């Protein structure tokens, strides 16, 4: 059976430009699978690989000569990083290779190891939801013949399926779902599991949040929807809003985003049947909002949307805490003091060539330039024109939480190290050395870079 795949025409141009500078290149294919059909919205070339030593020595980047030179784990890491930027429902569908070698007929074993590594890396990461099944799309473009061919490879069964890949003029029919998920989760560090790094507790918290998520129910534009209903029917009666986006003037149907409301049915929520007292060594509270925008193919069913919503929340939450822990030193992690950890917050960036928005995560102090760097490194997007960055979550005024955690009247302070009540910066991990804080009250950033590249 042949699989179907489609992407927009301009990606063929992107692919055909690659051989000009690269003899062999590899990259990621991003999109969504609906009813076993691949819907591709982005191709992103993996940057040339360079070892740390070479980088340190200032050696120039060397491009690959053939696919055997592909560094599997580097590509897999690229897939991991790129997945974190994707909204729920979107995945790294597979990889593309630009090379004049014949690689799909017969199927080159290098591709097997590459796809297996990618699959494994994505699968290892809890709550990344990196793999969408075990079938990976592989796309080959040859600069010499100007032809392309696609297959899918099942890493579990090693079977290969032909893929009929079509490049079409503007498809652009993704439906947009918006919501802000509100978290306020309290966790007690009990006496028994006191030891151990903070992120171990965070893992438990994420598991608990995930469990809660599975029980939520959702309203779409304030209505219940049947789980097998396709989302194309949601906006049927809705009017087309005024053309707010310049890029989409030529596009006749930019639909109003579907508002998602999330509810917890407290009656079916499991609660213990005992009142319990416990001596605790402290508490961890996760509080804030996750802002999400999903982009889904009209054929997606409501139950798939719901799955995508849950995946988006967990992917975003776990991604940002991972990034946060990675940024801390062991010393900082081990510090036995009250802390407000401020993981990077989500920025929603509208891709210049489609109306889809992806995410980037900014630490306090980082700004628009950092978004630009991520886009370039991970998605191979040169943000040469106007870039729409939406900072809906906003940065916390963390001082409010310090006041809460160590109020002067707090009792039983004899057993823990004295924590001063004024916010003396050296005691706290975050907010240290961040030089400046970008605007607390967030805004829609419009970065105008030398507008010489405007299409």
């Amino acid at each position, binding site marked *: 059976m042949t699989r179907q795949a489609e992407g927009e025409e301009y990606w063929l141009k992107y692919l055909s430009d690659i051989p000009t500078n690269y003899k062999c290149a590899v990259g990621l294919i991003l999109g969504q699978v609906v009813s076993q059909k691949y819907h591709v919205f982005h191709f992103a070339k993996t940057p040339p690989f360079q070892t740390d030593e070479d980088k340190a020595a200032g050696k120039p980047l060397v491009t690959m000569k053939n696919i055997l030179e592909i560094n599997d784990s580097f590509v897999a890491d690229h897939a991991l990083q790129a997945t974190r930027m994707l909204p729920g429902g979107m995945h790294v569908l597979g990889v593309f290779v630009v090379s004049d070698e014949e690689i799909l007929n017969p199927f080159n074993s290098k591709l097997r190891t590459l796809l297996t590594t990618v699959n494994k890396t994505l699968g290892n990461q809890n709550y990344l939801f990196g793999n969408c099944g075990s079938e990976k799309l592989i796309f080959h473009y040859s600069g010499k013949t100007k032809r392309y061919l696609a297959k899918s490879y099942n890493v579990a069964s090693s079977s290969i399926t032909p893929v009929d890949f079509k490049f079409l003029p503007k498809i652009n029919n993704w439906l947009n779902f918006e919501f802000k998920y509100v978290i306020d989760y309290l966790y007690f560090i009990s006496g028994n599991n006191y030891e151990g790094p903070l992120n171990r507790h965070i893992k438990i918290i994420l598991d608990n949040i995930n469990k809660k998520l599975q029980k939520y129910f959702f309203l779409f534009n304030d209505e219940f929807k049947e789980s097998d209903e396709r989302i194309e029917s949601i906006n049927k009666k809705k009017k087309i809003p005024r053309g707010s986006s310049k890029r989409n003037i030529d596009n006749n149907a930019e639909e109003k985003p579907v508002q998602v409301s999330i509810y917890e049915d407290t009656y079916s929520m499991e609660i213990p049947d*005992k009142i319990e007292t416990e001596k605790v060594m402290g508490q961890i509270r996760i509080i804030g909002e996750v802002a999400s925008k999903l982009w889904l193919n009209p054929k997606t069913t409501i139950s798939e949307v719901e799955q995508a919503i849950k995946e988006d929340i967990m992917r975003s939450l776990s991604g940002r805490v991972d990034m946060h822990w990675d940024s801390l030193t062991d010393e900082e992690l081990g510090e036995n003091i009250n802390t407000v950890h401020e993981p990077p917050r989500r920025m929603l960036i509208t891709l210049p060539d489609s109306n889809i928005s992806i995410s980037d995560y900014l630490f306090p102090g980082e700004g628009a330039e950092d978004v630009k760097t991520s886009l370039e490194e991970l998605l191979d997007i040169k943000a040469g024109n106007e870039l729409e960055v939406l900072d809906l979550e906003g940065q916390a005024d963390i001082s409010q939480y310090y006041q809460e955690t160590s109020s002067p009247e707090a009792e039983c302070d004899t057993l823990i190290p004295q924590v001063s009540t004024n916010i003396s910066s050296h005691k706290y991990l975050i907010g240290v050395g961040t030089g400046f804080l970008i605007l607390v009250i967030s805004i829609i950033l419009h970065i105008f870079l030398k507008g010489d590249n405007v299409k």
Partner: protein
Amino acid sequence: MKTNVKISNNLIEKLQKLHDPCFGKLYGIVIKDTIYVLGLQVDKDDANILYSFPNEVDFCGLFQSYLQNPDTDTIIQRCNDIDVTDTPVFLGIKINGNNNHIVSHVIESNKVTDASYVPVKLNEIYSNFVHVRIRGNLFLNSEASETRLQESFNELSKDILSGTLAFKLPKGNVILTGKDTGNNTVGLVGDPTLGDILELNQSNEITQKKRKVEDDDYSLDIINLNFIKKVSNDKYVVDQKQHAPVVVLDKKLADVIKVPIKIDFLSLIQRNVHFSTLYNIMLESILKNLNLFENCLYVVLRENEIKGKIDSPETLHFFVKECGHFVTQIVFNRSTEILKKEREALHDILLISKQYPVFRKGNKYQFYDENRKNKLLLNPHKGLKSTNNSGKVCLVKGNYEYYHYCQDKIDDNGWGCAYRSLQTLASWFKLQGYANKEVPTFKDIQTCLVDIGDKPSSFIDSRQWIGSTEVSFVLNTLLGVTSKILHVSSGEEMAFKGPELVNHFEVHGSPIMIGGGVLAHTILGVDYNQETGNIKFLILDPHYTGEEDLSIVQNKGWCGWKGTEFWDKGSYYNMCLPQVQIGV
């Protein structure tokens, strides 16, 4: 505007029987210029049972029973505490023996004005009003001190009022939200009243939902709602009060108390009220429930410091026949003596006779449970046509379940009738609150008889019959109930047992197991004509093997009135008459 005072017949009856001078509060519903007075509370210590009444039933007046004259100054002064009406009711009861005279007044601008009252039957009240039952779960974490707990309860209340809660009908995807603009309901066509909602529900499937309460001609309709919590922010814009998730680590050693709270509260609301207007009433319900919970928790905490874990309390709703309204109690697992004292106090302040229990766990109101499809029939004799015997009808008091052949996947056809009759008797003791135990299974019964030495161990899992004496042994051993055994040497002799049976049903009111020949039955009542000496027996037959279908049971005579000819002339019979003890 003239205030109309309507008083429930049940309340009037209570006041007429008052023997001693006392003061007390009146509770009722105020609708425009009409006050429906439904319940009372006698002043005793600082007891306040406002939160035990359904929501919307408020403190609306006072009563005083006196020998000479009422203390109007005190009345007027105390009426200042009433905020649901500008014209609180004052009922003066002049004690004169058995049938006190009740005078009704309203207090208006600090003056006592006469205002005649209209007695109303429960029938009228419950055809105008419907109960809305709100349920859902909350969770409270706090440092384990009373001050901190109070703060936490306050926080929780604030959270409840913050607008994130919504209410959902269990079926049909209908939601009521707190939106103050536009349509605040989801899944409804038009703007139905509570009456409409009930009809919608009933037409779906719940045909048996209307259940007659006792023999009175009224039914209690309940609309169930669950509360749900919104965990998304509708404002998809930058919200200055909100921010990206942060992780606040507070390494403070503390004793914490984790309190799961099951909200389960009733409101009494007029049927013509629109569903869309319920939001604030439901919030109020939750807050009242929370308040009741909080107060009960402090009582328990003051008694004993909690170390480790204790059972969460149960929220129990009692529909007390004498009162004619629901009384909600939150009951912690405390010592038998304390619980008994509390029940007695409740009987006292509600002026309920202490002859038999009404506030034990078993007395809780049996709500219709959609999830239990093949539920045992409750009181299958209700609705049967009376006999033409024109005698004194004395029936089982309270509720029992109909146990019969082939239930619980046990094929006891041919041998289990006495076991089933025993189970019916045990269910009565459970539902009357006398026994805080589940109805014994066949295995329980057989094991019990082996344990007390009445039967050899081979009896367990056998299909051997039991008789009236075994029934009385089991009742005594498992439920602590003593029984009287009545013997007749032939079925014909049953015709002369009228006075004894009348007496049993009047004093004890428990169902009777009767065994004779090869059959066992349950006697639920008698219709005894003293003049003619004719007697009819209300029989519940355990030999029925069919589905739990009331119409079959009644129409085919599995539950019905039988004459003396029902009994076999050639057999002797033993009856087991379970005795009840006076008390609560």
